[in-house]
């Protein structure tokens, strides 16, 4: 039994219009996504904007309604009985993309970090204060900050307040939705390394959603690449970066910038090759609607979206 297993997850958004607001069509934001995460590992979900990676994360935690499919967390199907949700929420937490809008501007840091504790644990005032100070120290903020308001902090500090809030209930799984994309590059590393540290300390599992391949390579053990709501390729970090099979993955990997000027020509040539391959093999990799085919296993850890019988 795996820690988190997502089976054929579909999230559709209705397009309403016409007379009486009828449902005209659906947008298939997530269209049959399956993956599994082992405890203590980091799973990366990569894709361009609009590929459905954030929707997948939000569907797992329950912010988006799941149209069909299963989300099995520690053996419990989260889609089955809604009553169980509240208990599971304690174990699944989320770090949000935008540290500016994810903290209530009218609340002090104390109230922000204490919110989950107040919901689930009955603590006295002093115990609560102690826990909050403890959490803040864990994320590298001083005890004095508990009475400040969010706007008094920098972006990196705010994101760390968000992380403190997410780890307050000692969750097992954290869904990190582009946790650093709103941050300055110099602060990104700081937050990411910190996330790695607490992963070891608290035995956390991450579902790491990002569009930045460099970060994903740094953080993740396994990666899934999404395109238009479907998986195009999944495998270990090694598989994806060294042996990309799908043309979409190849293009992504080719797009990673190389700062060494000596490789400039080589890089340019490589990109041109990939571009040429993309142009003549697009029909092979994508079906008539421009969507990816179902995944096929090419090794024990590596799956690629290929047409039936292709290699």
């Amino acid at each position, binding site marked *: 039994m795996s820690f988190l297993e997502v089976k054929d997850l579909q999230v559709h958004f209705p397009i309403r219009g016409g007379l009486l607001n009828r449902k005209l069509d659906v947008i298939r934001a997530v269209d049959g996504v399956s993956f599994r995460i082992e405890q203590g590992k980091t799973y990366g979900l990569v894709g361009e904007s609009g590929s459905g990676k954030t929707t997948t994360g*939000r569907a797992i*935690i*329950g*912010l988006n309604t799941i149209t069909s499919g299963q989300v099995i967390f520690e053996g419990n199907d989260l889609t089955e009985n809604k009553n169980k949700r*509240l208990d599971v*929420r*304690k174990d*699944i*937490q*989320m770090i*949000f*993309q*935008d540290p500016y*809008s*994810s*903290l*209530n*501007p*009218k*609340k*002090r840091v104390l109230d922000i970090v204490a*919110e*989950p504790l107040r*919901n*689930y644990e009955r603590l006295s005032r*002093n115990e609560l*204060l*102690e826990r909050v*100070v403890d959490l803040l120290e864990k994320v590298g903020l001083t*005890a*004095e900050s*508990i*009475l*400040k*308001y969010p*706007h*008094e902090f920098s972006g990196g500090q705010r994101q760390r307040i*968000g992380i403190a*809030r997410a780890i307050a209930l000692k969750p097992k799984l954290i869904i990190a939705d582009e946790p650093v994309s709103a941050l300055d590059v110099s602060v990104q590393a700081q937050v990411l390394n910190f996330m790695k540290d607490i992963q070891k300390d608290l035995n956390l599992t991450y579902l790491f959603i990002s569009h930045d391949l460099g970060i994903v390579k740094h953080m993740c053990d396994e990666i899934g690449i999404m395109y238009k709501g479907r998986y195009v390729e999944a495998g270990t970090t090694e598989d994806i970066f060294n042996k990309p099979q799908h043309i979409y993955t190849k293009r992504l990997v080719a797009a990673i910038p190389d700062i060494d000027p000596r490789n400039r020509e080589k890089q340019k040539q490589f990109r041109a090759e990939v571009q040429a391959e993309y142009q003549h093999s697009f029909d092979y990799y994508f079906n008539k609607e421009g969507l990816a085919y179902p995944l096929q296993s090419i090794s024990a850890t590596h799956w690629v979206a290929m047409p039936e019988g292709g290699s």
Partner: protein
Amino acid sequence: MEAIKLDIKKEKKAHKSQTGLSILWREIIHDKLALISLIFFIGITVTVFVISLVLDLDEIVRVDLFAIHEPPSRTFWLGTDYGGRDIFGQLIIGTRNSLLIGFIVTILTGVIGVTFGLISGYFAGHLDNVMMRILEFFNILPFLMLVIVFVALVPKYSTVSFSLIMTAFLWMEIARIIRAKALQERELDYIQASKTLGTPNWKIMFGHVLPNLSSLIIVILTLNLAANIGLESGLSFLGFGFPEDTPSLGTLLSYARNPQTLQDRWWIWLPAAILIFLLMLSVRNVGEALKRATDPRQRRG
């Protein structure tokens, strides 16, 4: 732990100046007109409520045929009306009644409107749809006509029941504004975050969304207070407000419908007219200053 507690007190002082309420307050301090208006309004309110404690209403509204239409004198500071009743006493009691109605209606419409709008906007979807149709139903009701019917149906009504009937038709505008704001607010990440943290919906609505709308609510309520005082006076002037034995600013003003009173006996209606004008103007000045404060680009302070 002790050190932290000590810090709390110190920090509280240092960070108090950042809240929305203090921005509103600063704007009023910087706008001299609004500050004077606020002092004037509070002054009038306190004076009227204190003096009306001393005055005896029965004494004032008792008809005295030997003192009809007296001009201002030492015994009757502002003269008397056609029943020989003291105008000054009526003015004080009347202002108190008008202000009381203004306050009650504003607070009641505020509570109903904010709750309705918050629920509608926060949950959105089907519930919002149903609630908005209910609101629109109230919106199309002819306010004036229904108040007239009410006055005709209920022979003896009090400040409270009159306030209730006004409230029934005046909460919609607030509800709409709050709903629009709540719809905006619910999409923000911090609301989503609260949901993932397991906070119940009612707590998110009143504990998270509401504080973020507080300055807006204060502005709307202040501006509505001025409107409600005016509305009550208007209704009483038309004869659909309070009866004569419950004086209000409007009933005093309505004496001016008599051409002779209008021309020769200024002391009956002029003070009330000036007071209505000044009260509404001052509340409005404060309201406009608060409104400016909610938009950082218009702020003066």
